């Protein structure tokens, strides 16, 4: 990998108040990849994403995106650069309709990045199209996840940060979500995926980072990780 990474995180430390969650964390994502960050509850996965987006600011280390330093940008500014954040729990607006949720994303997002129109996004997600004028609160968990992803597309993104997209979803919906992630990737969108479910990572990701207690403890392709039973057992308590 000789090309410059799209997203590069170097020695980032971050936390909440006096509690340090990330310690000297480094990882990078190349353009066009699907990279997973997998680890147990409380390992620092979400904190990593929140640091990248700028919801919390790292106490040390640097984060670069397309070669530019984005360490100290806030969430609004990073999103305007073309990173989209699809948070855990989806955080769609429950009292806005599906269409309004998308319109809002259209007002925001990255101005310089090619984005989906609201119509295109609704074409892609059949269920949402049917429910375009229903309030967000009436959607099922899977539909909310679709809406959260559609929102990122309408805003325009070269890199989507997905926080536990399959959490709490029924198995057949998990498959739908995975299909969508692959489809997005085929359309040229880079994905950084945070997951507790290693099977989702192994199936989707080109490369995987394993995070434990705020540090990257392992990096490898899905094939390598799948073969490494010792690591899987030690850090995730699973056998693939």
């Amino acid at each position, binding site marked *: 990998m000789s090309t410059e990474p799209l997203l590069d995180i170097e020695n980032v430390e971050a936390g909440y108040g006096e509690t340090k969650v990330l310690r000297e964390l480094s990882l990078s994502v190349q353009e066009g990849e699907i990279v997973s960050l997998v680890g147990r509850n409380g390992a620092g996965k979400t904190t990593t994403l929140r640091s990248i*987006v700028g*919801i919390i600011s790292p106490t040390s280390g640097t984060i670069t995106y397309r070669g530019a330093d984005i360490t100290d940008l*806030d*969430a*609004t500014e990073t*999103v*305007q650069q073309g990173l989209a*954040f699809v*948070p855990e729990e989806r*955080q769609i*607006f*429950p*009292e*806005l309709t599906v269409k*309004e949720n998308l*319109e*809002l*994303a259209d*007002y*925001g*997002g*990255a101005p310089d990045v090619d984005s989906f129109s609201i119509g295109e996004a609704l074409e892609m997600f059949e269920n949402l199209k049917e429910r375009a004028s229903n309030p967000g609160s009436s959607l099922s968990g899977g539909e909310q996840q679709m809406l959260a992803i559609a*929102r990122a597309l309408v*805003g325009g993104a070269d890199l989507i940060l997905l926080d536990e997209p399959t959490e709490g979803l029924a198995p057949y919906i998990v498959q739908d979500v995975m299909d969508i992630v692959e489809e997005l990737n085929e359309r040229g969108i880079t994905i950084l995926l945070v997951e507790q479910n290693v099977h989702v990572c192994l199936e989707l990701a080109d490369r995987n980072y394993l995070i434990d207690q705020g540090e990257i403890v392992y990096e490898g392709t899905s094939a390598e990780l799948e073969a490494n039973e010792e690591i899987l057992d030690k850090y995730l308590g699973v056998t693939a």
Partner: protein
Amino acid sequence: MLGTAIQQLLDGITLGLVYVLLAAGLSVIFGVMNVINFAHGELAVLGAYLAVALTIQTGIGSTAFVAALVIAPFLVGIIGVALERYTVQPLYGRNPLYHILLTFGLVLVINDLVYLIWGTGSFRLPRPGVLTGTIGAFGLGISSYNVFMIVSGTLMAFAVWALLEYTKYGLIIRAGSQDRQMVRNLGIEIDRYYSLVFGVGAGLAAFAGIILAGNRQANPELGMSIIIPAFVIVVLGGLGSFKGAVVGGLLVGILQESILRPWVPWLEGMVIFVLMIAILLIRPHGLFGTELAEEGGSERLLAGRAGGLLERETRLKLGLVMIGVLALVPIVAGLLGNQFWVTFGSRVLVWALFALSLDFVMGYTGLVSLGHALFLGLGAYAVVLGLIHVTSSVFVALALAIALSAAIAWIVGFLSIRVAGVYFAMITLAFAELYYNLLYRLEITGGSEGLGLIGHDYYYGIAGVGASLDDVAFFVGPVVLTGHSLFYYVVLGALVASYFVTRRMLQSPFGSVLKSIRENEERATFLGYNTIVYKRRAFVVSGAFAGLAGGLFALNNAFVSPSAAEWLKSGEVIVMVILGGMGTLYGPIIGAGAFFGLEQLLTHYTGRWRLVLGTIFVLFVIFLPRGLVSVPTMLAPYLPGGPGPAADPGQLPEEAKTEGDD
């Protein structure tokens, strides 16, 4: 009969629409920015006065009226934008309760400005000829101005609704009131919309104020009287919900004007507070509100910091010197032949005790009571009623006051402490307003006349042993201490005793739990403490001391009226606590001294001293939230051995900082 009913219904809708316009701005401002704007009523008054000024300038006629209706809200809107930018904005990221404090300061400032510019008289907005007659319909004569109010109010409410529903701004604002951070995460700079929201809200309030001022007599106090129902409506409908503001506004308007006033006037003014309390208890997020993500609610209140600068022993000595100085006041006043300082001193000490009581619950458990005047009023009426009907011993009457206030505090605490932060502030306000209105209605409390102690004999003592202060005299050199001078010592004694009792409590295990709640309530819970029980106990202690302060308050005046429980008093005592520095027991005492010292100083120059006080308070909230007691700590690194920061007598303890050569 039916005609009257229709007329009353129309009156209710008319007032309801005014409320809708007020509450809509208030509610949306809260939803988007988490700011409870106490100054909203003052902005309405400002609009009304500007409109009058404009119509008088441009001649009274339809054109002038319409011009005023457009220009005045616009001007107030601009003022709103400026207020948001220069006072509200610096406080984002702090505990939302600071916004309550800030906007309370703004109430004092704007209210006094209105007095200063337009005087104290009441007025009615000159209406153009077309709107003065009546319109015949259904065999009724309906005032054409009422029709105008209903039509223009409805149109305005529709305009706001359309703005929220169908524009880009509206969508962003609606989304912001659900989840601000997620709006930011979508790449939208929501903070840029804050000024706009505040400005539009202010303009709406102004519009409401203007049309109301054409309907009834208005005066500078109008803002104080409409802000409380507006709060009730916002709470009722749901903080942040426009729909809630509309439904709540019409409901309260019709309830007040069409049902309570004509049919059960006795209950007028009380039902809405009962309703507000019920809603807060059963469904704190109101009829149409959504449960709010507790964003920013976890930021702590900023306690005063003075500890550590002086040795414990030095501080004790300073305290004793302070008590000594205070004890000399009546003697010096006697030597100078000026009794003013004795009555003034008594007043300051009563308020110092009241402020101390509030700080015990606000500074140590983080519960901001917006209705602490409830306990002042309870104590005051308990003493007066006790002395008139039950006993002639002042001590017994004071004990009654303490017991009654503590009991009511337990009940209020039992009901309210489950709700946190802003909701707690609102519910305490509702209880205080309920009591305040009750005082007007009850026979036994003498209604608005109040009750006097003149003509009733009472003595300081117990079981018949004791004497009236007027019958006792001490001779200190040429000075005779009697009556008021002795009462001064009673108050000083009560304050000193209360100080030491509360201090002892804070050093006990109970106090340690309170402090741990203040530092981090969650962790205190993890340690196995039922923090609600501890907070309630602190609230009861606070209520008891406030009741004592209330009793002394009534004795000092030998009179009590409902104003003892008005919400302005609750606000003023918060001002004192913040000025001095909350979370320290001497801070509020210093704050009370500074408050009245300032008043005394300023009334020499201007009758509108609240303007200056409010400005100082606003500056304190923005720049010095830890209060006067934190000044030496802040200055210590810069001014080694420098003089004390101010010549305020209340600040005596700071002078010893000259010793802190560090």
